[in-house]
């Protein structure tokens, strides 16, 4: 098992280099350079002197392979460089101040999705074609088809403007500093409710469908028949024998969703004015802030590779067949 994990880890290194190289190339090929954008392209102030100075400072005057090599060398020392934005702050610091809120939002969202999707999926699978199944099917299609931004605006209009129950945007009230402790906590939480509801809605639809599908396949298996034939109560058949097996594909999907935890949803963050990773990335792209874009990509792709690894490893832990098959295929 350990050898397998190590081997996978080794393969991940060239993969990561490949990903960063292609990304680096693509980003630099996009028209518009940070030096040009900052000197206000096509504006009276577009000062060639300043442009050259910035290009030199950012190292953009060097050939692309050299730029990439310098970037990799710095990355080797875990130095993600300084942002090209005029605040010139370290990339890690910028990511660091945006990451917590995005992580929090997405982790809570994921927990809610799993907590709701599993029972919904199981129930609609075990009671296929029941009213509950039909309702959830409709719900799922609505969930798939509803654009995030539209739902978000509708909810804001209802709960923020008409009823005035929840704050509309941001993370804290204007006078948050002056609130007593418990009110501060509630204020912060109340700002997260709408974004989490919106983000959960779309994800829930997909997840409950996967769960239903997986469960439907499992309940048709022979061992479930066997369990029933032994006279086990239905609860044990479904809860113990069927569910465990039905969860296997869900583990994979969950693993693959892990990188999404740090990615941040651009739409939800923009509409609710949440200063998270999604907004940071969008702004970086508009400013052609290469170090921030690349820093973000490294974090996300490393996590993706790790999550794949973790998913495969846990998969083999929970499913003995994979371990055996793996051993045999090596011969």
């Amino acid at each position: 098992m350990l050898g397998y994990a190590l081997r996978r880890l080794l393969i991940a290194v060239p993969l990561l280099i490949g990903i960063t190289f292609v990304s680096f190339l693509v980003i630099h090929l996009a028209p518009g350079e940070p030096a040009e954008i900052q000197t206000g392209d096509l504006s009276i102030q577009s000062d060639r002197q300043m442009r050259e100075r910035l290009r030199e400072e950012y190292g953009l005057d060097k050939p692309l392979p050299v730029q990439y090599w310098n970037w990799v060398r710095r990355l080797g020392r875990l130095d993600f460089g300084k942002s090209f934005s005029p605040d010139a702050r370290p990339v890690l610091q910028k990511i660091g101040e945006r990451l917590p809120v995005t992580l929090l939002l997405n982790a809570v969202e994921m927990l809610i999705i799993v907590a709701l999707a599993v029972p919904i999926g199981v129930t609609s699978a075990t009671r296929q074609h029941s009213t509950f199944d039909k309702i959830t099917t409709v719900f799922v299609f609505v969930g798939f088809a509803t654009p995030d931004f539209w739902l978000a605006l509708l909810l804001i209009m209802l709960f923020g403007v008409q009823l005035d129950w929840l704050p509309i945007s941001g993370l804290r009230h204007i006078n948050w500093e002056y609130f007593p402790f418990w009110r501060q906590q509630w204020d912060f939480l109340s700002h997260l409710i709408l974004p989490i509801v919106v983000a959960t809605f779309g994800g829930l639809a997909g997840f409950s469908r996967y769960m239903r599908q997986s469960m439907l396949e499992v309940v048709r298996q022979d061992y479930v028949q066997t369990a029933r034939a032994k006279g086990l109560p239905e609860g044990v058949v479904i809860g113990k024998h069927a569910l465990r097996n039905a969860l296997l594909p869900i583990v994979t999907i969950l693993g693959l969703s892990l990188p999404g935890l740090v990615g941040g949803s651009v739409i939800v963050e923009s509409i609710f004015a949440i200063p998270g990773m999604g907004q940071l990335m969008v702004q970086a792209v508009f400013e052609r802030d290469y170090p921030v874009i690349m820093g973000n990509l490294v974090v996300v792709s490393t996590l993706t590779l790790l999550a794949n690894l973790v998913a495969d490893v846990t998969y083999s832990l929970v499913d003995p067949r994979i371990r055996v098959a793996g051993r045999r295929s090596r011969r």
Partner: protein
Amino acid sequence: MRLTACRLAAWLVLAGAVAACGGRADSAAEQPSGAESSQPAYGDTFIEALTGNISGLIPNVLSDSASFEVGSLLYNGLVMRDKNLNLVGDLAESWKFSKDCLDLTLTLKRNVRWHDGRPFTADDAVFTYETMINPKTPTAYREDFKAVASAVAPDPYTLRVRYKEPYAKALQTWETWILPRHVLEEYALAGKLREAPQNRADPVGTGPYRFREWRPGEKVVLVANPDYFEGRPYLSRIVYRIIPSQATIFLELKAKGVDSAGLTALQYNRQTDYPAFRKAYHKYRYPGNAYTYLGFNLKDPRFADRRVRQALAHAIDKRQLIEFVIGGLGREATGPYKPGTWAHTPSVKQYPYDMAKARALLAEAGWKPNSEGMLVKDGRPFQFELMTNQGNDERKKVAEIVQASLKELGIQVDIRIIEWAALLKEYIKKRRFEALILGWGIGLDPDQFNIWHSSKTAPDELNFISYANPEVDRLLEDGRRWCIQEDRTKYYARLQEVLAEDQPIIFLYFRDALPVVSSRVKGIVPAPAGIRHNFTEWFVPKRLQRYTAG
């Protein structure tokens, strides 16, 4: 102080929306009830929405409009614009030009202190000048300072500036934010102003507000400066909330989560016309500082013919265009200056909507309709590509109307919408375009040398339509070479006549700025400069104050 920001930010804006600053108050617009029955009072918080994160706190080395807006409350220039857009003293008490316009002597105010308590002196102005011309300083606003030969401080309250040649923008140059030498000198000398801690927190200015807090992507908080040399401003705290989505800002406005925002034409006309909104906000309307135009590549032989351009000007119904695109909330443009400013002249050649005249002019230029009604010359149909940038719905609509209007004439227009950076790099700079819908943001000085002068046609320069007219060149040169406004007026009046005759571009319209401000805020005086010119005098009467903390 606002106007400093405007001058720098809105000089020439091509991309997105234009900051709403400056402008003539519309007499027909809704205005606050004049009855300021309540006494001015200190206190309350004013909440503003910014669509973008600020990028720093030393605006001299930044280029985004959000940073300018915040910076304009933290810093002062030596001079500023009053409500009628005239230059008046800010940190300067008075000034004098020598007879030859080469020497400018400014006398500075004596009671001014930096936010850290140190006195402000002429040496700080000299420092700012040195910083701006230092090639290591990453600033985009060096241009105006290049005309300065020397700037010295013979005593702490006198600044003596010598110019290389008479320069029209000599005085305006000193609207630049003045920076403190005692805090920033080491960073400025090293070319590291952007890395200076004052660019991230606790900037030291002389302005009416002091820095309190900046949470990136979330908010910037300023508090009133009790020692401000013009007296403490009434509003105690200013919170800039960063809200990227315009739709969210509008909903926040409805829920009273922000106190001020700019409206779109649709919101102004349709979505804010109900009693609760009218009670909570006052709406303002005045022409903005940017115009939209239809530009041609004058290297293209078809457009090089002036009669063709004049014909196209006759074929576009500007009034209908304004009605359709921005709900009538704009003014027809006849030239590059905003109606109501000192350089603008209304007496230029007009191009009323007249299809018959358009056809006649085109026929004169050799374009005759064929059997299918298409205009043809030398066997080739009149067909061109009209480009504009992505993400600007207004320009897209303008392009569509132009397309429909010209179709009536027998000209086929194909619209192409391209991402901004690509449009700029691949098409405009390489001159690979036939016609464009774009906009120019205009400055407060009428000098537009860089846009119209025939020497400014290099790839990176602004005369990308390749306009060349010897008379225009001469007028631009003369207009910028003198320091007395009255003497300059005649050059710019003639310039507008020539441009109207030539139609190097078809000037379409100036869009109105449509800000709303919470009705609890009193003391707002709409003027040609807009509403922000007396921000430090805005107040909320005690009984209407909403935020008592802070």
